[in-house]
């Protein structure tokens, strides 16, 4: 819109500022809460300015030395678990989707359409729907409390396959033919031509899938019983005891802030690529 009317400008600013406040205020409260002692937070009214206990709280959280009634697993380790799972899920998803999209687009084999639709149909079956049978399989394979159990069932991805398929379809056929004339075999073409062209899509998907992996809650809740395999998102919940005892809200809030940092970092660092991958198709 190139309209310039003061009232419209004022209204749009008002709406945007309101939106920012709605999103940012809880984050601010979380941060403020993570800098006070647990007694200070439960006062009414709650303090709205940062307190002096920032370093102390975060140290307790990371090392798991708060002495709370609920779970006191060290957040540092949980973040490591989360990081490994999210990375494995993101990288695994991208690798598998790239290869399956490559197979579907560039090879003529019997049942090609069938396999494409079979992959496509799994869009209707997210983990939550098939959680019972998947749990059965994972537990029978002895993968409970392992990284494999945390990641493998989440790796297959119809969305990413579909995205790469659409991208590959938009790559001109002449490029494939030029590569054939140049003597590049299928894998060589994939590696030398297709992959570099997909860079931006890969980056965009990485961001999306990393956050998806990081935010997993339900699945880890099922397959991990050992504190040393808790991812951080689940760890936050475990820190809140069900009303029997006072919660160390300051530590919980510190953990929440810590859990938000890596996804935010990934988005910030890859923002340029991310937007490029979603917006333009560089060909």
């Amino acid at each position, binding site marked *: 819109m190139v309209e310039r009317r003061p009232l419209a400008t004022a209204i749009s600013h008002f709406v945007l500022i309101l939106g920012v406040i709605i999103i940012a205020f809880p984050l601010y409260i979380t941060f403020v809460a993570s800098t006070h002692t647990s007694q200070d937070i439960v006062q009414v009214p709650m303090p709205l300015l940062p307190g002096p206990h920032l370093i102390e709280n975060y140290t307790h959280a990371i090392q798991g030395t708060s002495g709370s009634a609920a779970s006191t697993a060290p957040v540092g380790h949980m973040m490591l678990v989360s990081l490994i799972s999210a990375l494995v899920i993101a990288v695994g998803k991208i690798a598998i989707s790239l290869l399956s999209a490559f197979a579907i687009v560039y090879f003529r084999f019997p049942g090609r359409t069938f396999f494409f639709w079979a992959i496509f149909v799994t869009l209707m079956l997210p983990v939550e729907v098939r959680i019972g049978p998947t749990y059965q399989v994972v537990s029978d394979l002895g993968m409970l409390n392992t990284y494999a159990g945390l990641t493998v069932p989440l790796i297959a991805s119809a969305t990413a396959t579909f995205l790469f398929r659409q991208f590959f379809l938009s790559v*001109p056929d*002449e*490029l494939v*033919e*030029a*590569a*054939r*004339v*140049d*003597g*590049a075999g299928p894998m*060589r073409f994939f590696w*030398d*031509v297709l992959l*570099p*062209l997909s*860079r931006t899509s890969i980056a965009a998907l990485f961001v999306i899938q990393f956050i998806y992996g990081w935010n997993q809650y339900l699945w880890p809740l099922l397959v991990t019983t050992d504190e040393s395999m808790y991812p951080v998102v689940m760890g936050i919940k475990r820190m809140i005891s069900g009303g029997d005892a006072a919660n160390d809200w300051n530590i919980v809030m510190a953990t929440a802030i810590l859990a938000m940092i890596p996804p935010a970092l990934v988005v910030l660092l890859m923002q340029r690529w991310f937007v490029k991958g979603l917006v333009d198709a*560089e*060909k």
Partner: protein
Amino acid sequence: MASISLRNLVKRYGHGPNANQVIHGVNAEVQHGEFVVIVGPSGCGKSTLLRMVAGLEEISGGEIAIGSRVVNTLEPAERDIAMVFQNYALYPHMSVFDNMAYGLKIAKVPKDEIKTRVDKAAKILELGHLLERKPRELSGGQRQRVAMGRAIVRQPQVFLFDEPLSNLDAKLRAQTRLEIQKLHRELGITSLFVTHDQVEAMTLAQRMIVMNGGHMEQFGTPEEVYHQPASTFVASFIGSPPMNLLQHAPGARPGTLLGIRPEHLDVGSEGWEVVVDTVELLGAERLIYARLGGEPLIVRVEEGALAPRPGDTLHVAPRENRLHWFDADSGKRL
């Protein structure tokens, strides 16, 4: 010696009675070092024919030999050919140098040899200062030259061009046409060049194949094709404006067609009596659209000659030695 032999070449899509046949038994022998243009209207199978030679389309019947080697089942890379595509098909993420070097890299040519060859090709095509650029930073004409460079560095037996000039503007097209001619003179590599543009065909070809509906209508030098067209199709496809084809010309036997080019009709005091419909001035010459009996007839005259007006009656005399006779049913030359 890299001649190209096409023997009874057939291309079908699909199987059985419903198969769609697009190439109907083409036979042609291209000599070593010859520049042959394949020309025809859209959908006549000319690109398919070229792609079969390249190995990008399977061959349904017949044989293709490059040199003495039958290449029917060989991969494109094994046929010792290089191809220039219509949209250039440059790898967008590679520099000009890498684009040209890619085929050699795969063929495991030593690094310094690659560099020598690319530099040499770049020098021929005046691309030396662009080697580090990406294709998107180049103009259409420069991309076209890179595509040719990629073909040259491979030092193939055969060059295949698939309408490489159709994405260039008119001026650049004429210039590139000259460059391709020069290149062919310098390198002397057997070339097949597909185009739908008859000017390109006439100017570039040493010999040309005129295709229509998957059939080869004529294979000959531009002079032969122009002066002795093998069929009414060739007669009307090559030449602008096309040859006049008359069914009821004075002196024509029933079942035959008389062909006469617009420039081989002389306006004078005797000959056929025609009525003028329209007159067009093309600069150096005028086209007179007239009717002979009921049939349309185009006459080309010098710009300096007196311009008739619509409705005028003229006498035009055909030059006897420039008459072409065709069979009315088959369209073949008699």
